[in-house]
C-alpha cells in the first residue's frame, strides 16, 4: 500500500504533464503577484495624490482647443469628444499616408529595378538616404520647412488652384450642387454593375473558355455612366478656390502645416521601406515565369496581371502589412510637432487631469484595436493570394 503510494508520488514527479502543470501554475502565480503588487502600489500612490481612478473624467469639460478635425469640437466639449477628434485625426493621416506611401513605394521599387542606369541609381539614393535617418528627425525638418514657407501674401501657387504658405496647404474644393445626387447614384449603379459583370465574365470563362474584357468595359461604365448623367444635368461644375482676403486665405479646403509635415514625413519614410518590399517581391518571381507565359501566347499585360503579380503579391503582402501598421503607429510622432492626433490629445488630457493610467491604457487599447483589425484585414487578403498547397 505504502510502496504503491510512493510509486504514485514518484510517477507524479517524473510525469512531464504534471511538472508542466506545476511550472505553469508557478509562472501564472508570479505574473499575477507582480500585477497585484503594481496595481496595489498604483492605487496607493493615486490615493496619496488625491487622483480618482476610473473613466469618469471622460465626461468632464476638456477646456482646450484642437486646431483641426473632421468631428466638430469646441473647448467646452468633453474629454471623450476630444479623444474622438484625436482618433479621427490619427486615422485620416494614416489612411492618406498609406495611400501616398504605397504609390511612392511602388514607383521607387520599380525604378530601382529599371534597366535605366540613372533612374535605378536615383531610386537607390532615395532609399538609402531616407531609411537610415530617424523618422522623428525627418518630421522636424519637414515641419521646419513648412512653417518657414512665406506668409499668405507671398504664398507659393504651384497651379491647379493649390496655395502653399506657412498657414498650410489650401486646396480648391468642388461646390456641392443639388444635381450631384443623381450623379452619385449613377456611380453607385455603375460600381454594382462592374461587380456583377465581373462575376458573370469569370463564370462564363470557366464554362466556355471565352474571355470577356470585363475590366475595360467595366471601367468605361464606371466613368461613362456618371459622366453621362453629369452632362445630362448640364455639367454644373463650380470650384471653391482659395483667395486672399486680408491676412489669410478664404475658401477652399485647408490642410494644416502640421498635417502636411506629418503626411510628408510618414509617406517619404515608409515609401522607402515599401520600395524595398516591392523590389524583393518582383525579384522573387523567376524570369522563367515570364518566358513561359509569353511562350503560351499571353500578351505582356496578361503576363503581368495573371502570372507575375499574383506571385509577387504573395511575397509582398505580409511585409507590406507590417509597414502599414508601422505607418499607423508612427503617426503617433505627431505629438512632437503638435498635430492633434490621439496620442497628442491623450497627452494633454493626462497633463490636465493626472489620469495617466487611464490615458495611456486608452491609447494603447485603441492602437491595439487598429493594429489587430488592420492585420486581420491584410491576413484575409493574404489568404486569398497565398499559395494553396495540398
Amino acid at each position, binding site marked *: 500500500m505504502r510502496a504503491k503510494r510512493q510509486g504514485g508520488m514518484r510517477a507524479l514527479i517524473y510525469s512531464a504533464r504534471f511538472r*508542466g502543470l506545476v*511550472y*505553469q*501554475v508557478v*509562472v*501564472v502565480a508570479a*505574473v499575477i503577484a507582480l500585477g497585484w503588487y*503594481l496595481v496595489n*502600489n*498604483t492605487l*496607493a*500612490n*493615486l490615493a*496619496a495624490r488625491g487622483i480618482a481612478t476610473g473613466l469618469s473624467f471622460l465626461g468632464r469639460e476638456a477646456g482646450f482647443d484642437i486646431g483641426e478635425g473632421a468631428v466638430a469640437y469646441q473647448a467646452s466639449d468633453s474629454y471623450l469628444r476630444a479623444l474622438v477628434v484625436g482618433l479621427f485625426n490619427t486615422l485620416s493621416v494614416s489612411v492618406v499616408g498609406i495611400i501616398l506611401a504605397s504609390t511612392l513605394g511602388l514607383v521607387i521599387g520599380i525604378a530601382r529595378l*529599371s*534597366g*535605366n*542606369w*540613372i*533612374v535605378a541609381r*536615383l531610386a537607390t539614393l532615395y532609399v*538609402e*538616404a531616407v*531609411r*537610415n*535617418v*530617424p*523618422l*522623428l*528627425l*525627418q518630421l*522636424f*525638418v519637414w515641419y*521646419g*520647412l513648412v512653417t*518657414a514657407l512665406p506668409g499668405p501674401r507671398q504664398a507659393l501657387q504651384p497651379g491647379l488652384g493649390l496655395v502653399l504658405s506657412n498657414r498650410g496647404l489650401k486646396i480648391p474644393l468642388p461646390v456641392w450642387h443639388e444635381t450631384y445626387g443623381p450623379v452619385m447614384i449613377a456611380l453607385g449603379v455603375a460600381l454594382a454593375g462592374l461587380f456583377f459583370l465581373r462575376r458573370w465574365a469569370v463564370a462564363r470563362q470557366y464554362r466556355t473558355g471565352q474571355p470577356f474584357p470585363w475590366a475595360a468595359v467595366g471601367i468605361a461604365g464606371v466613368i461613362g455612366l456618371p459622366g453621362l448623367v453629369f452632362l445630362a444635368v448640364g455639367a454644373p461644375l463650380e470650384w471653391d478656390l482659395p483667395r486672399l482676403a486680408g491676412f489669410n486665405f478664404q475658401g477652399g479646403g485647408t490642410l494644416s502645416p502640421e498635417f502636411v509635415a506629418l503626411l510628408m514625413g510618414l509617406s517619404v519614410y515608409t515609401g522607402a521601406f515599401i520600395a524595398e518590399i516591392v523590389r524583393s517581391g518582383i525579384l522573387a518571381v523567376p524570369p522563367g515565369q515570364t518566358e513561359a507565359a509569353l511562350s503560351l501566347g499571353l500578351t505582356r499585360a496578361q503576363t503581368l496581371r495573371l502570372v507575375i503579380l499574383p506571385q509577387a503579391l504573395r511575397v509582398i503582402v505580409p511585409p507590406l502589412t507590417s509597414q502599414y*501598421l508601422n505607418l499607423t*503607429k*508612427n503617426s*503617433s*510622432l505627431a*505629438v*512632437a510637432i503638435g498635430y492633434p492626433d490621439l*496620442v497628442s490629445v491623450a*497627452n494633454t488630457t*493626462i497633463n490636465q487631469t493626472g489620469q*495617466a*493610467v487611464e490615458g*495611456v491604457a486608452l*491609447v*494603447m487599447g485603441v*492602437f*491595439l484595436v487598429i*493594429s*489587430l483589425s488592420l492585420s486581420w484585414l491584410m491576413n484575409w487578403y493574404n489568404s486569398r493570394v497565398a499559395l494553396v498547397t495540398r
Partner: protein
Amino acid sequence: MNPAPDDQTRRATAASEIEEPSSAQTPERAPPASQLRLLGWARKNLFGSLPNTILTLLAFWLLWEILPPLVRWGLVDAVFSPAGGAASCREATGACWALMGEKNRLMLFGVYPYDQHWRPALATALVIGLLATSAVRSLWGRWLIWAWAVCLAVVGILMWGGVLGLAYVETAQWGGLPLTLGLAILGIVLAFPLSILLALGRRSDLPAIRALSVGYIELVRGVPLVSVLFMASVMFPLFLPEGVSIDKLLRALVGITLFTAAYLAEAVRGGLQAIPRGQEEAADALGLTYWQKMRMVVLPQALRLVIPPIVNQFISCFKDTSLVTIVGLYDLLAATKAALADPDWRPFFVEGYIAAALVYWSFCFFMSRYSQWLERELAKGSRR
C-alpha cells in the same frame, strides 16, 4: 585596336596546335557595340528605347534643377568660418555651416558640464571602438563579452564620475551622442535575454506560458513606442512603492528594453523555427532536460542564424532612441533641437538637422551594410 588578321590567325593556329584544335575555326571578333566603352554603355543603359530615353532626359532635367542650386547653397555661398557668428550667416545666401563650429559641443554632448566634455567623448570613442572590434569575425569569442562588461563599467565611471577624482554628473545632465548610443546598446543587450525567454515561451508546449508570451509580444508590437515611453515616464513612478523614485533615464531605458524585447523575440523565434525538429528529438532521446536541450543543442544553432536580424533590430533601436526626445531626454536629436532653439541660429535649422542626420545615417548605413555582409558570410558554411 584589333590586331592584324593574319597575326590573329597565326596566334590562334599556334594555340590550336598545343591544345584545342576546334578553336582555330572561330576567329576572334570585336565585342558587340553595346559593351563598347562609354558610348555603347550609355546607349544600352540610358537610351535603349524611346521610354528609356524619355526617363533618362527627365532624370537629367531633375538633376539639373536640383544639383547646381544645392551645390551653390551648400558649398559656394555657404559660410564655414564661425568667426563672424550668426550675423555673417544671415548676410550670406548659402548654408550656415558656421553653426556647427558654434554648437557642435552642445549637439554632441547636450548639457553635460562643458569643461568635462572629454569624459563623454572618451566614453563614446571607447564604445565605438569596441563596436568596430566586435564586428570583426575572427575576433569573436568569449573574451568579447568580458571586454564589453569592462567597457560598460569604464563608461559608467566616466559618465557618472564621483570616484577617482572625477566630479559627479547626474544622469539628468547626460545627453547627445553618448546617450543615444548608450540607450541603443543597453536596450538591445538587456532585451536579448528577455527576448530568448519570450521566444521559447511562444514555442512552448505549456499553454499558459505560450499564452502569456504571445499576449506580451502581440500587445507590445501592436502599440507605438511613443505610448510605451509615455507609460514608462508617467506610469512607472506610480508602480513603485511610495518614496521610491526611479531615474528618468532609467525609465526610458526600461521602456525601450520592454519594447525591443518583443520585436527581438520574433527574430529569435524565426531562428528557432529554422532548426530541424530532429535536433530536438535527438536531444530528447539522449535524455537531456529542457534547459540542457535548449542551452546545448537548439539555441547555439538558432542564435547563429539570428545574428543578422539582431543587427537589423539594433539599427531600428538606434533610430528609435530619438523618440526619447518626446519624454524630455537630451539625446542627439533633442540636443540638436536645443542648439537650434537659440534665436540667433534658429533660421539655420536645416543645417543643424542635416548634421545630426549625417551622424545617424553613417551609423545606420554602415551597420546595415555590415548585416548584409554578415548574412552572406555566415551562410558560406551551408552553401553548396
